[in-house]
C-alpha cells in the first residue's frame, strides 16, 4: 500500500510541470458579460463551505464567438424560446379556462426573482420543486390542464421565459425551507458518486479538472445558472435535466429519469454551487 502511494505521488510529480503549463492556457476568460445593458456576475466569491474559492460562469469557458452570441440578446437564438414563453403566458388551457396570466398578470413583476430562488421546498409533495414542476403544478391544480411531457417545447419555453425575468439576479437558495437541506446533502453525495462503465462523477470533470481540456472541450465548473441553455450542438434550448441525463449517459450508465428524486436532489445541490452567479437564462453554450 505504502509503495503504491509513493508511486502515485511520484507519478504526479513527474507530470506536474506539463499539466501546470497547459492549464495556464485554458483558464476561464477574463471578461465581463453585459446583456441588454445589465452587467452579469460571471465571477464571484463562493459561499461558505464550498469546495471552490471563486465561482465562474460557464460563459467564461467558451470561445469568443460563442460568448458574443449570449452578449447580444437579439442574436441569441435562445430568445426565441423566451418569446414563445411570453406568448404561451396568456394562452388559456384546461378545464378551468385559465392561462398563466389569469393569476400572474404581470410576469415581468410577478416572476422577477423566481428563477433565482428555485428549487424551493414543496410542502405538499415533500420534495424540492423546480420551475418545470411548478408550471405543471399550476397547470394541474389551477388550470385543469395536463402536465407537460418532459422537454416539450412549451415546457422549455415557459421555463426560459420565467427564468429570464430574473436575468442578472444572483442565484440564492433558501435551504432552511422544509427538508431542503436533507435533499442538498443527498445531492452532494450524488455529485461525488462515480457512475457508469467510465466510472466518473460530476466532480471528476467539473471540480477536479475544470479549466482543462477534454479533447477540444474546455471543462467548466458545471454551473447551472443559464438553463434552459441554447446549445449550438443541438441548435435549440436544452433543459437542465436533459443536460444531467446527457452527462450521466456519457459515463455509460443507465440514465436517471427527469425530475426523479435523484435529479431533484442534484439540481438543488448544483444550483447552490452557483450561489451568487447571475441568472443568465437563456445562456448560449457550445
Amino acid at each position, binding site marked *: 500500500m505504502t509503495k503504491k502511494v509513493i508511486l502515485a505521488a511520484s507519478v504526479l510529480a513527474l507530470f506536474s510541470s506539463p499539466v501546470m503549463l497547459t492549464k495556464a492556457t485554458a483558464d476561464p476568460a477574463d471578461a465581463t458579460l453585459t446583456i441588454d445593458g445589465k452587467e452579469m456576475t460571471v465571477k464571484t466569491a463562493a459561499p461558505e463551505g464550498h469546495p471552490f474559492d471563486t465561482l465562474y460562469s460557464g460563459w467564461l469557458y467558451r470561445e469568443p464567438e460563442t460568448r458574443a452570441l449570449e452578449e447580444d440578446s437579439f442574436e441569441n437564438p435562445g430568445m426565441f424560446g423566451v418569446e*414563445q414563453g411570453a406568448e404561451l403566458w396568456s394562452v388559456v388551457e384546461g378545464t378551468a379556462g385559465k392561462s398563466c396570466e389569469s393569476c400572474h398578470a404581470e410576469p415581468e413583476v410577478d416572476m422577477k426573482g423566481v428563477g433565482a430562488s428555485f428549487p424551493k421546498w414543496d410542502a405538499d409533495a415533500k420534495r424540492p420543486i423546480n420551475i418545470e414542476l411548478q408550471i405543471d403544478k399550476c397547470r394541474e391544480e389551477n388550470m385543469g390542464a395536463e402536465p407537460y411531457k418532459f422537454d416539450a417545447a412549451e415546457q422549455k419555453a415557459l421555463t426560459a421565459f420565467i427564468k429570464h425575468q430574473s436575468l442578472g439576479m444572483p442565484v440564492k437558495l433558501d435551504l432552511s425551507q422544509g427538508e431542503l437541506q436533507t435533499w442538498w446533502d443527498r445531492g452532494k453525495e450524488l455529485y461525488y458518486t462515480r457512475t457508469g462503465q467510465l466510472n466518473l462523477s460530476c466532480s471528476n470533470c467539473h471540480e477536479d479538472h475544470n479549466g482543462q481540456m477534454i479533447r477540444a472541450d474546455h471543462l467548466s465548473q458545471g454551473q447551472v445558472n443559464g438553463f434552459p441553455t441554447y446549445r449550438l450542438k443541438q441548435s435549440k434550448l436544452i433543459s437542465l435535466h436533459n443536460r444531467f441525463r446527457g452527462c450521466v449517459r456519457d459515463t455509460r450508465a443507465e440514465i436517471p429519469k427527469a425530475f426523479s428524486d435523484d435529479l431533484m436532489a442534484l439540481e438543488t445541490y448544483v444550483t447552490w454551487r452557483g450561489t451568487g452567479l447571475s441568472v443568465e437564462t437563456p445562456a448560449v453554450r457550445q
Partner: protein
Amino acid sequence: MASKPRVKLPKSASAGEIITIKTLISHEMESGQRKDKNGEVIPRQIINKFTVTFNDKTVFEADIEPAISSNPYFEFAVKVPESGTFKFTWVDDDGSVYETEEAIEVA
C-alpha cells in the same frame, strides 16, 4: 414550421447614412444530408432565399444553401436616402413565405 422573423435597425437616420440591419429567423434549416434513426434521409427543408426591399426597391438578397446554420442570421448595410419602409422576406423550401416590415424616419 414556426418561424418568427426578428429584425433590428435604427428607428431613424440622417439622409444618406449607412445603417446596419440585423435579422434572425427561427428555422431548423434541415439540410437534407442527415439520416434519422432508421437510416432514412430526412428531407431537406431550408429557407432558400432572403430578400430585403426598401420602398419596393431590392437592396439586399441572399441565396441560401443548407450550410447556413439553424435560425439563420444575416447582418448587412443599407444607405438610407429617404424615409420609407423596409420589407424583409424569407422563402421556405415548402413554399411558405415569412415577411415582416420596418419603417425608418429620415430627418
